[in-house]
Structures are given as C-alpha cells and as structure tokens.
C-alpha cells in the first residue's frame, strides 16, 4: 500500500475551510503595505477537503510501526509504553492555554509542577539542581558542556578538550565540538568497559570533562566508576553523565553518588513521554553545587510558598531555548512520576534489567554475545555468526520487521561489528519477549537455510527495502545542478497566481 502525497491529491476546486470574517472597518493589507514587501505568488499548498485531509493522515498512520502496536526493542532509546494518563494530563486547558508571558501569579500551578518535577529528578539522579529548559537529550548534553566550560573559565582555566569513550552515542562528540571543545577518544577494554590505562594517559590539565554513560552503550555497568571519577576529579576535570541509560538503576543507585557532576535525562526515554516519531522530547540537566551558578536562566525558585522565575543569575550561561522548555512534556513526565512513585520507579528499573537479562539468555546460541553478562537494562549481540551465509545485522533487522517487530538498534555501538542492540524495557510481558526470541530463532534458521529469502525481506510492509544510495546520488546530482529533481521535496508542476 502506498499513499499519494497531499500535493498529488490536491484539487483546485476543493473548498477552503470557513473561517471568521474580520467584522471591522480597515484597509486591505495589499493597499497599505509596499508592493516589494508583499508576496507575488501564492505558495503551492495542497487544496483538500476535511474528509480528504483526515483520510490522508489516517492512511499514513496505518503505515507506521509504533509502541501502540509493536514491540520496539531499540537499544539506547528506552521505548517503553507511554501511559495514556500522561496525554490526558498534558491536554488539560489549565496547561495548554497558558501564555508563556502571563504574570507569575497567574501560573503558580505550572511553576509548582516544574518545581516539583525538579525536586523529583534531583532525588532520582542525586544532584542539587536541575534545569528543565533543554528540548532534547543532545540539547541537554550541550547545555551541560556549556556550564562546565563556564565553570572552568570562571576559575581562569582554559580547558580545551573533552574525553569521549569510543562506545559513546554520536551526540556526545557532536555536542562537545559544538561547544568549541576538541574531542579526544578513550578506548574500551576487551570486556567492553572503559580502559582505565587509556583514560589515564589522556587526562591532563587541558581536559574539561569526561562524558560517560553508565551502564555503557554495551549495557554493562562501569564497575570502576568510583576510580574513574577520582582520576577525572584529580585533574580538575568534571564528569558528565549521559542519561540515555538511566532506566537501568532508578532507586538502586544514583549518578550523583558515583561522582558525576552534571547529568542529562531524557524524559522521552526514562519518564515515558512519547517519542512522537522523532520528538518533541525533553532533556533536563542536573548539576552538583559548584555548577549551579552557571544554570541557564530562568530557574524556578520557591519562596514562602510563592513560586517565581529567577532571571538574575550573573554567572548563568544564558538561555538555551525560548521560554521554559517543552512544558507539555514536563507535565507528562511529572504525571508519570506521581503515578509511579519512588517504589514504582525502582520496580521499573528492576524489571527492565530482568527483561534484558531474560531476553539475552533466550538469544544465547542464536546470535553472538561478545561480552559477559549479566547486563543491565540492555544488551548488545552481534550477527557476525551469520556472516558465513552472507547475512548481516541489517538482514536480521529487516527479518524482524517482516515478523511484526520493530528492529533493535543496529551497527551501534561502533565497537561491536554487526551490532544488534536490544533494550526490551520493563513494560513488555514475558510472552512478548518469548515471541521476539522465537522470531530471532526463525530468522537464524532462515539465515542458515535460505539466506537469499531473508535478504529480500520485508515483503508485507508498505514498501520493501529502499535504495538509499540512489537517493543520496540523486540529491548530489541536484545540488551539482545536473538534475531538476530536488528529491528532498515535491515540486509543483506549475506556479499559481496570488
């Protein structure tokens, strides 16, 4: 099944929606505004009736896999179920209708929610303050690095390097580079954990921070974290926690106690705000006391039961986005935390670790498991055992799509060849995990018996494997002026008069 583009379905005689009339006496814009500031040609937007619009998007919706219908074991992404109560809470008019420039005394409920969410996140990760402003995890990473940079500068130190393990998320080095740092890679040892010897050799008075996730991207807890923290702190550098894997140990241990100075959290992972097909998320950042002066403005402060926004923070790194963050996502995360409570969050992490270890056990013997267990909330397998049949991790992923599962993260982390990174989360039942393991078994059987068949899956989805190389080639041709087709957008056949 494919669906034409809205532009292709457009009908020139479709009625525009009925909208309010001006009902006032005033000149027409076209008579007042100088011609060179007016639009010469109307944009070629589609013209469709409401039923056509609704049908178009309903058909598009039916072409997606999603948490609502499929198991989504995407490693590092924590695709857990998104409670529908979160959506109900975020839709309350008392939240959706608030203008960001309303006076503080008319938004006390919103500020109270933000304040309580900050307190709860402080308790979960063990830090002193949290900014809720960053819009996503990578945005949070960058915000934290800016604070660390400001901290060093305030002490008259120009530290220019940030250390990043070779197994880190791609956002880590990118965020460091965008903050103006040089990125220095630290090697993983044979057991998948950071190499202390390599770390030691790269630490110097030039290093501003080490960025680390724990458990690491292999799903392994960095057992030597306290030694790592001591090494880093002894050189005056800060330790940064990438919170992508926070779901592993809520209520069990806290990054703040491990020695991390700054921590970002992904509310769209650990705290069940939906992923929206690629956002919006929210990436709050928690910090220890000596980084607090550098938090973005404004912060939410509570005085004698009254809440206010504090803009007077002389050492602040400034604003990292407009207004106060993705407030609607903060409401959802707060609702989740209230419903779960400390006991529920702890149980969630325990169940996530149990699910991952159970599933790991179930795929043992089917796929390679390059590192020793137990794992935490996720594990990395490798499809290199299928290589003799010409089967790659990509083929396993496509085979899973054919069997009605979303695919795990593949080819990441980079340190494992043919990586298949599986994170089941706590919200999946044992029957679902068993069905997934059975699908892997079936795929491995097919890889051995009829690899050619597997290489052509999926068959039952709206499209088969797409030729991404051809797409990139055609875009290059367009950008070099060799083709008229931009590939990155639909092109109207003709321009319309204004």
């Amino acid at each position: 099944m494919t669906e034409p583009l809205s532009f292709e379905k457009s009908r020139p005689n479709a009625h525009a929606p009925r909208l309010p009339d001006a009902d006032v006496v005033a000149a027409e814009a076209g008579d007042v505004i100088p011609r060179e500031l007016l639009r010469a040609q109307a944009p070629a937007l589609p013209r469709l009736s409401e039923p056509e619009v609704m049908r178009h998007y309903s058909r598009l919706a039916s072409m997606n896999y999603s948490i609502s219908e499929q198991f989504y074991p995407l490693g590092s992404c924590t695709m857990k179920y998104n409670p529908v109560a979160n959506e109900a809470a975020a839709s309350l008019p008392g939240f959706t209708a608030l203008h960001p420039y309303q006076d503080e005394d008319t938004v006390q409920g919103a500020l109270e929610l933000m304040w309580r969410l900050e307190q709860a996140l402080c308790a979960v990760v063990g830090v002193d303050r949290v900014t809720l402003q960053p819009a996503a995890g990578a945005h949070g990473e960058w915000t934290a690095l800016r604070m660390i940079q400001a901290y060093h500068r305030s002490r008259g130190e120009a530290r220019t390097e940030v250390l990043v393990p070779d197994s880190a998320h791609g956002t880590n080095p990118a965020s460091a580079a965008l903050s103006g740092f040089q990125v220095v890679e630290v090697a993983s040892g044979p057991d998948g954990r950071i190499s202390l010897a390599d770390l030691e050799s790269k630490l110097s008075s030039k290093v501003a921070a080490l960025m680390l996730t724990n458990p690491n991207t292999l799903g392994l807890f960095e057992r030597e974290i306290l030694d790592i923290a001591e090494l880093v702190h002894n050189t005056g550098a800060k330790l940064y926690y990438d919170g992508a894997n926070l779901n592993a140990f809520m209520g069990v241990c806290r990054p703040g106690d491990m020695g991390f100075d700054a921590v970002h959290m992904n509310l769209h992972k650990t705290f069940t705000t939906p992923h929206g097909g690629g956002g919006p998320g929210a990436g709050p950042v928690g910090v220890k006391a000596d980084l607090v002066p550098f938090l973005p403005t404004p912060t939410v402060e509570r005085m004698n039961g009254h809440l206010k926004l504090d803009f007077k923070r002389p050492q602040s790194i400034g604003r990292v986005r407009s207004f106060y963050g993705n407030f609607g996502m903060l409401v959802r995360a707060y609702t989740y935390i209230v419903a779960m409570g400390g006991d529920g969050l702890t149980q969630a992490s325990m169940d996530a670790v149990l699910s991952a270890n159970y599933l790991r056990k179930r795929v043992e013997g089917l796929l390679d498991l390059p590192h020793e267990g137990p794992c935490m909330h996720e594990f990395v397998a490798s499809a290199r055992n299928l290589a003799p049949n010409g089967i790659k991790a990509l083929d396993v992923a496509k085979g899973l799509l054919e069997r009605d599962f979303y695919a795990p993260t593949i080819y990441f982390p980079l340190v494992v060849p043919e990586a298949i990174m599986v994170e089941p989360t706590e919200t999946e039942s044992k029957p679902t995990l068993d069905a997934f393991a059975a699908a892997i078994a079936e795929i491995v059987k097919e890889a051995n018996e009829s690899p050619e068949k597997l290489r052509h899956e999926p068959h039952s989805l709206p499209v088969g494997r797409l030729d991404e190389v051809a797409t990139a080639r055609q875009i290059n041709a367009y950008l070099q002026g060799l083709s008229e087709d931009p590939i990155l957008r639909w092109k109207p056949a003709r321009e319309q008069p204004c």
Partner: protein
Amino acid sequence: MLAALGIDSMEGLLVDIPQSLRIPSLELPNGLSEFETMAQVTSLAARNRVFPDRLTFRGGGVYRRFIPAAVAAVTSKPEFYTAYTPYQPEASQGTLQAIYEFQTLIAELTALDVANASLYDGATAVAEAAMMAYVHTGRKEVLVAGYVHPEYVDVLRAFSEGRGIKVKKGSEPTAMTAAVIFQQPDFLGLLVDAPELTKRAHDVGAIAIACVDPISLALLAPPGQYGADIAVGEGQQLGLSPSYGGPHVGFIACHKDLVRRLPGRLIGTSHDAQGRRGFVLTLTAREQHIRREKATSNICTNHSLCALAASVYMTYMGAEGMRHVADVSFKRAHALATRLAALPGWELAFPDRQFLNEFPIRVPNPAAVNRKLARKGILGGLDMHRWFRDLKGVFTFTCTEVNDARAMDELVEAVSS
C-alpha cells in the same frame, strides 16, 4: 524469568554495582492510582489562570489562533505519537511521508529550495542558521539587525559563545560579517526592509537570515522572493497551543547551495526493488550518529510530532485559508490600533512604520493597564520595557482571527474605565 536465569533474586543481576553506591530507596512518595494522580495534576492545572482565546491580546512570539479539530485528531493517533525516529524506513513510511510533506510545505511557504524535518523552536532555529553561516563563510561575526526576539538573541549568544563567534547589533555588515539576521515582522510587530537588509548582506559576501512568521508568509514576500539565503522561524501558530511556551516547532529552509550545511534530519524520496516510491532519512553524512564531532549539529530527537501538527494545519487551511486568517488578523489589528491610539494619553510608538497584526503603542499608565484588563478577564499587551530600555511605556498588542469585534470593544472599554 529469574528461574530461567538460574538465580533466585534480582541481586544476582546487580553484582556489578559496588555496594557502597547502593541506596535503600528513592526519597520520593510511593506511587498513586490513576484517579489520585489525575486529581493531583488537575489541582495544579486549576491553580493557573486561563484567559479565553478571544480575550488574549498578548503575543511576543506565541499567539492564540484557531486550531482546526483535525490537528489534534491526527497528532493523537498513537501510530504517530508513539513511534520513534524513523530509522527503519519500511516500518515508518507514515512518519517519513508526513515529514517529507512538511519539508515541502515549508519550502513552498518560504519560497526556498529545501527545508529540514524540524528544529526545537524559533530561537534555536536562528542559532542553527547562524552556525551554518559561520561554517559556510569562515567568518566569526554575526549581525543582528533591529528588534529581533530578545530570547532568540539570547539563545544565539549561548550557541555562539562556545565557538568564539561574536554577536553584534546593527544593520551595517562588513567583510567580517558571516550573517545578517533580521526578523520580519520584528519583535514589535513592525515590518522591516527585508530586501534592503538582504542586499546589504550580499554586498559584503554575508548570508542573509530571515526569521519569519509562517502565517505572515501567506501575505508578505517570502524570503526566497527577496533572495534571503536562509529562512527560519517558530511554527507555533501552525496549529499548536501556547502550552506555556512549548513544545512548539522551529523550521529552517535554505538555498540549495547551503543544503549540506543544514542541521538535523532530512527526508528524501526513494524506491524499492519493485519500483514503489518510499521515503528515507538521507544526507545522513551531515549527522552526529555518522560524523560524530564533525557533524553539522548534534541534533538527534527534534520536534517531529509538532511538525506533523503544522503539516495538518497547513494542509487543512491551504494557501487560501492561511491568506484569509492573515488578512483578518491584519484588519483587526489595524482597527484596534486606531481605536487605542484615539484614547487620551495613548499613541502609536512608531506611527510611520507598517505592521501586520501586532503593534507597539505607548500607554499612559503602564503599571495600571494590564491590571485593569486582567480584572475583566483580558490578557493585555506585552510590556517592551522588560527587554528594551528605550521602550519605556511601550506595549505590544496582537490580534488574530480569534479576537472578535466584541472582544475588542471589551478591551477598549476596560482600559477607558
């Protein structure tokens, strides 16, 4: 499951965590039932004061507009809101096609070649555009011309500082200038000479960055028409509620020469072996998961669902519907400006300048105006003095299709009393 693992307690799985790091429990209350949870959250919502759409005359970057019911009906489909970033294209064609349509809608609206899949907000869109200009020109200064949204400038400064880029104010670029950034209409609602600012940028080899209001583009010259290289903006007005400032959606579109410098996701058309058209994430060599520290930006999660909302809005309204609300907003704002300027002590702050649907006006008793209005349930103008020393006593008021004639009467009555 424990039995399958051959262990009898969870402790067997937590062996790698040093005992000294273990905590007895979280210092948080225990969980609640859904009923109790909702009661608690609802009581927080009830502690906020909601001003009705029709009586909201405050803008400053976030506006009340008519939102078709179709928008929420689409974005609340779990197939859209519970999906992940479309890494597996065969299982994500719905999201991919919707965002490809978003890219086309934004490119059409701005009259530029290519738009990306979305950014966080208008502020980060301005900053990302400035970073593109810095990399493209190799120059380390950006010029902000006129009254650009002060929070956008703050974010631009935060992005620039780490990389050693200077942010200057003014409208006279030099050979050191990477980009001239202007907002049309500006933060006060006034029209700027966008074609002239674009020309000045190009005269010194700088990039012209236009920060635009998407609804205004149904009426005003789009950046592509006057030759701006990059258009950015805030898409909140395209079907998203104010929601205390977010989540909304930033957009960015550019001339084809700059496509490889674009931040974030891009979606293109492709084909499968049977010749069926499909959509894929493409030009990923710009992105963090491939290029790591050499990526054009660090963006991973962006604002896909908000881009979907904007697409539904633009598709539902069409060019004609958007032009209609832009016209209605223009007329109402002008009618209101005339009435307010006729009140004793009130006068337009920039009487010689054109505006669209938001305008700056000098008010006689700044401290009292909004208090009086709030008493009548009206969310009045925005005090510009908060950001600009030279605008003491100047408020901006905004009108859209939701502020009916009777609401304007109520506003004028309330300030006259």
